[in-house]
């Protein structure tokens, strides 16, 4: 015995399925936070777009990402005999992180051990946390003092909250002005510590893909013969960076 005919069954099924389909379509169109993550492509690929929702969530609390450059099979520059850039940057990052945590400022390091990370993976770590500052740490045997670099991109005319799709390599364009203000804070503290500073613009990964105020800090020896292995010099740089990031915690919400 049939309770309902086939035609009736089809009608009931359609009546139940249409609202479900509509709900699924509406759900799929909802912004899903801020999924600015690294696409699974090799570093250097610029054609991939990252989805930026119409209203990205602002960082709710002050958090800093420190990115010790290089690592693993990539030692970076050989600063002096027995000291590679990857080791120096990790030591400096851990020193700054310890000082910031002592001031109750949450810090995330892109790496805490000697591992290799791609530029995309570093940017992904920065972007997923919605942080207030992203600092990439480098070191070199050339030049003197500390070199500060911000992205060479031009500040995007469109507010970052209104950009629909952003090429992965131009994510920083929405944050250039804030990055310059962060650079200014770091410059002030380094100058206060009597460390010579050189400021410039450059195209660097992961900075170009960072959806946060981002800065590359490159530490070089001093003109007076002070080397990068000098513990006092390292502490001076770490103190200045910590002080700048403490200052930035009071200023980062001010829109340019």
């Amino acid at each position: 015995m049939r309770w309902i005919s086939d035609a009736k069954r089809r009608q009931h099924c359609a009546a139940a399925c249409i609202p479900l389909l509509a709900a699924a379509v509406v759900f799929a169109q909802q912004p899903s936070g801020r999924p600015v993550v690294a696409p699974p492509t090799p570093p250097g690929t610029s054609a991939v777009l990252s989805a930026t929702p119409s209203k990205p969530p602002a960082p709710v609390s002050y958090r800093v990402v420190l990115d010790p450059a290089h690592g693993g099979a990539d030692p970076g520059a050989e600063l002096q005999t027995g000291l590679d850039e990857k080791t120096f940057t990790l030591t400096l990052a851990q020193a700054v992180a310890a000082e910031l945590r002592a001031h109750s400022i949450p810090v995330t390091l892109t790496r805490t051990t000697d591992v290799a990370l791609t530029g995309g993976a570093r940017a992904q770590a920065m972007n997923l946390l919605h942080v207030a500052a992203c600092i990439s740490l480098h070191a070199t045997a050339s030049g003197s003092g500390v070199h500060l670099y911000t992205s060479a991109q031009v500040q995007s005319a469109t507010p970052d909250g209104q950009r629909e799709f952003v090429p992965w390599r131009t994510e920083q364009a929405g944050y250039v002005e804030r990055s310059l203000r962060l650079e200014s804070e770091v410059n002030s503290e380094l100058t206060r510590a009597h460390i010579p500073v050189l400021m410039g613009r450059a195209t660097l990964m992961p900075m170009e893909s960072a959806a946060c105020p981002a800065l590359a800090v490159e530490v070089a020896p001093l003109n007076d013969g002070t080397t990068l292995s000098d513990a006092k010099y390292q502490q001076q740089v770490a103190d200045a960076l910590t002080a700048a990031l403490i200052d930035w915690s009071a200023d980062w919400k001010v829109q340019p």
Partner: protein
Amino acid sequence: MIPRWQQIIFWTLLLSTVGMAAYLIRLRSRTENRLLAVQDTAPVVASEDAPNAPVTLLIASDFEGALLPVQRFAPLPEEPSARAKAVLTALFAEYATPESPHPLAALTAVDTVYLLPVPASTPASTSMTASGIAPALNRATAPTPIPAATPPTAPTADAPTTDVLASPLLAVVNLNGDFVAHHPSGIEVENLTLLSIVSTLHANLPQITRVHFLVDGQPKDTLAGHADLTQDYWTAAMPITSTAATPEVQR
């Protein structure tokens, strides 16, 4: 017994096949000769008996973080690509000296320089600005450096006036892999090398508005771990950089 008409068709087809094979062999030979002729016209090294001419070198200084203009004399061929390579050879000869403010290994730095018309579509379609020229390296104590985005010096009096220089040019600089392997590593030192190349090319051949770098003929991500080689470097003459570079220079 094979009919006569089938024999005629067979021999006709056979002759046609042999004829087409001969024609294909002839075509292949002509194409090969044409390709070889193109290779023969590739840029050549600067001739030592080329006349000495003034050349403006934008010398990088690691301690100043700036480019400083220096006038030198070097043999400059008339052919634009060879001239560009000769200019860069003179530049890297300066860096190989012991007193260089930007010491680099005394190795052949540039294998070849190719000059091509700038593609019309790229500049406005990207928000990336002059990644090379735009970085305004400055420091309060720097003694009147020439900012990288400053309009270049006037071309030398005997600058070539061939048709290839009548429009904006893309210079493809093919760096030597051995030189790149020995290049010091660091954001500043690598950027200064690239800026020095781009600015020196533009100062001596103002029609060069864009520079692309290869290493041993292949694309490479960075020069020595930091400076980006995946993107082109623009000079200040391009519209996209004139608006972008100015405020950065004034920082």
